[in-house]
């Protein structure tokens, strides 16, 4: 049996990813089990999902503690979440990271393949929803599932245009993912304090950051009302973002009627 753990953030589609993978592998004659871990459904909060792949019905109903493979959907997550915890020696990590695996701050007796899934998702979908790109990367790096089965399942899941867009993300990542590199010689980066679902400081969740143009702000308070994290305060008639509470969801930018808020990608 092969066990896989997916790490992501609420909204990146980790649960959908394991379900699609379970269906695609089933097409190839495997028995599968896709287990989501539900917590509070908070967009941006760290989430995990598991996948078991076996040759016959899988009886284990506990969680996966010693995965063979770890997939990381978010480029910054590994700074606060111990993504390699319990990973078997010689195990594979497939990570959304725009640089070579040796620069990801992950070390240990593992193999690491990277792909800029955020970049690919933005190109293909216009949104940083990285799950389908990471499925393409997973297929190539692990060799466990064919691109064809994934394509078929994906189109069943999203018929029409959405399916086509996701197909592009899937295929592009399949082509661009790096071959796995040995990271046993790399010093693992110091972790920041472990992130919890109820964390107050959510700045590490951001891929995009709201930037305020004070001249264009007319003080209408829309952003202040809609921000789900209460990260915006109104000071002397102008909006101001408290960046430690801002998770980068972009709702303020969507709601602002004057275009005073633009979302800029965070540097890695």
């Amino acid at each position: 049996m092969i066990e896989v753990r997916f790490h992501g953030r609420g909204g990146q589609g980790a649960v959908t990813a394991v379900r699609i993978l379970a269906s695609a592998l089933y097409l190839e004659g495997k028995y599968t089990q896709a287990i989501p871990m539900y917590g509070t459904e908070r967009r941006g909060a760290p989430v995990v999902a598991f996948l078991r792949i076996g040759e016959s019905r899988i009886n284990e109903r506990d969680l996966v503690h010693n995965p063979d493979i770890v997939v990381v959907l978010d480029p910054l997550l590994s700074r606060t979440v111990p993504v390699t915890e319990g990973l078997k020696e010689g195990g594979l990590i497939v990570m959304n990271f725009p640089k070579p695996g040796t620069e990801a701050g992950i070390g240990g007796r593992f193999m690491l393949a990277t792909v800029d899934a955020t970049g690919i998702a933005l190109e293909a979908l216009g949104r940083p929803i990285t799950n389908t790109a990471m499925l393409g990367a997973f297929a190539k790096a692990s060799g466990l599932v064919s691109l064809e089965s994934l394509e078929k399942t994906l189109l069943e899941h999203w018929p029409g245009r959405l399916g086509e867009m996701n197909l592009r993300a899937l295929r592009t990542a399949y082509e661009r993912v790096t071959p796995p590199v040995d990271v046993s010689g790399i010093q693992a980066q110091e972790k920041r304090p472990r992130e919890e679902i109820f964390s107050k400081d959510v700045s590490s969740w951001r891929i995009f950051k709201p930037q305020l143009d004070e001249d264009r702000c007319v003080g209408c308070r829309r952003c202040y009302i809609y921000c789900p994290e209460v990260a915006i305060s109104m000071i002397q008639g102008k909006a101001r973002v408290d960046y430690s509470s801002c998770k980068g969801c972009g709702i303020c930018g969507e709601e602002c009627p004057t275009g005073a808020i633009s979302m800029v990608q965070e540097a890695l």
Partner: protein
Amino acid sequence: MGRWEVMVGNKAIAYAAKLARVQFISAYPITPQTSVVEYLAEMVASGELDAEFVNVEGELTAQTAALGASAAGARAFTATSGPGLLYMHHPMHATSGGRFPVVMAVIHRSVKGMQPDHSDMMAQRDTGWIMLECENSQELLDTGIMAFKIAEDERVRLPTIFAGDGYILSYTAEPVEIPSQEDVDAFLPPYRSSYPLLPGLAEEARRVQMEQWGIGQDPQLRWRRQQEAMEAAKMVIMEVNEEFYKWFGRRYGNGLVEEYRCDDVEAFIVAMGTIASTARTAIDRLQAKGRRIGLVKLKSFRPFPSEEFRRLGAMVRAIGVIDRNISLGSGGITFQEIRSSLYDLEERPRILGFHAGLSGKEVRVGDIEMICEKTLRAAKGEGPPSLVEWI
């Protein structure tokens, strides 16, 4: 021939209701409801399923509405979870008292918190419903179909719950075979109530009911008749399980309990639901190491298969019972019932009780291996004669 699909447990439950061609579905649509009724609502809206779907304002009404539909002669279904089931408690007595064969899916959720345990269903244990527990999504679908056949059998006529653990099954996706509609139709013919409470027929129906089910005579008689129906249900459950096997090639032990690798063992453990599933792996590992321990999966919690445990208990020296529940102030519920089933044996095995998985606490393969080792020690006469432990 059926077809296969990778689906979550909630969808498997919805398919059971659809394939059974339920005519009436009542549900409270908000938390703690699950996506079972969402799938069913879609099936009804798309015309795939011809049923009356009634959204109600609470679970008490959901149960009462299902009761009413069943009384009028419709095949009625509802689903709920955790605290929703607690709200149904009062009318559930009426459903069983009126001998209405409503079928209900229970997606376990603890009465303390969101994660699963069996406290929700155990709180209904004396409501007079048949209760069948499932360990995977295939079993949920299959048991759902069987539940109607059991409930509607003239020898039984009792409402029936089929249940599975929330999250662990309800939102986990795995391959499930969906039997063909033709086969299910042949296995489960349409429901024909012999005593529909319809205008004009109502009087006659009431008269028959009173006679047969003891209403309006000796005040205790209706209880006694219900208990007799529960006893009769044991045979019916076994029959339906075998007939299902003939049609679909799957069966669940003898319908009441399933013995897993119990040949030539000196002890066995007992578990319900998903813990029984995980326990299979533990048993496989231990038997590979030469340990002589098996698993008895308890599928029918009500009626409780005491005879089965008497038969099985006579073959071993120790039994370890895992309860995903507790009767506070007393103890593990299946532990006590099994223990009492063994009382009449000349030579009783030792029996140990374990509480595990309450409020969704994870039960790992290793936990069950440890339970097995303790049970094996008891079989060798080591350790205390009786023991209750929290895992």
